[in-house]
């Protein structure tokens, strides 16, 4: 399976701290995406990074991609209680057509 794996599975931090979560995958990709899921809701797209990019920013989010290590990280700076959610990475594959593979997610809790 090409499924990405997030690490850690769960993370608990204080409001204002930074949160870092990682994603590893197995095969070459075209792009990698990060999604957020609040409890009981659908997933919301956060950021897409292409295989020829190394870093991307969006507001308080910073994503890095290391294709040599087949890994990505998502950094949320100055976390807020509203950031409490599960975060998933999703990868496509050079040979998988238009299919995306989601990891099992990191559950982030931000304590006010």
């Amino acid at each position, binding site marked *: *399976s090409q*499924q990405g794996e997030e690490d850690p599975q769960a993370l608990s931090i204080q409001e204002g701290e930074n949160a870092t979560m990682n994603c590893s995958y197995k095969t070459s990709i*075209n*792009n990698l*995406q990060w*999604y957020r899921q609040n409890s*009981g*809701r*659908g*997933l*919301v*797209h956060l950021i*897409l990074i292409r295989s020829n990019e190394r870093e991307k920013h969006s507001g308080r989010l910073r994503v890095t991609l290391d294709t040599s290590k087949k890994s990505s990280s998502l950094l949320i700076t100055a976390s807020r209680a509203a950031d409490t959610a599960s975060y*998933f990475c*999703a990868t*496509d594959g050079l040979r998988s*057509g*238009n*299919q*995306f*593979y*989601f*990891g*099992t*997610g990191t559950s982030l809790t931000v304590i006010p």
Partner: protein
Amino acid sequence: DAGITQSPRHKVTETGTPVTLRCHQTENHRYMYWYRQDPGHGLRLIHYSYGVKDTDKGEVSDGYSVSRSKTEDFLLTLESATSSQTSVYFCAISESGYNEQFFGPGTRLTVL
């Protein structure tokens, strides 16, 4: 939620009965996806569509069929529901097969 709805939102059914879930979009996106989400497995792709009457299997397609007769509607059918198909089902849409996906609110299906 980006003009995407799912119906029903909740359903309880019995083993052996057929079940059809509907995904409806108002965005005129070409790609539509059905995923299931289970604890410990993240999201797994069941089937997807890349145009009217054009569909393909995902990694967990056994026991499921799909149809897309109009751009806006993508139906998922469980031909004979089993307890292992108890899950939360998400529909997603995308303009292209490589860009961000927009998710519906989900359908919680319980098979007794």
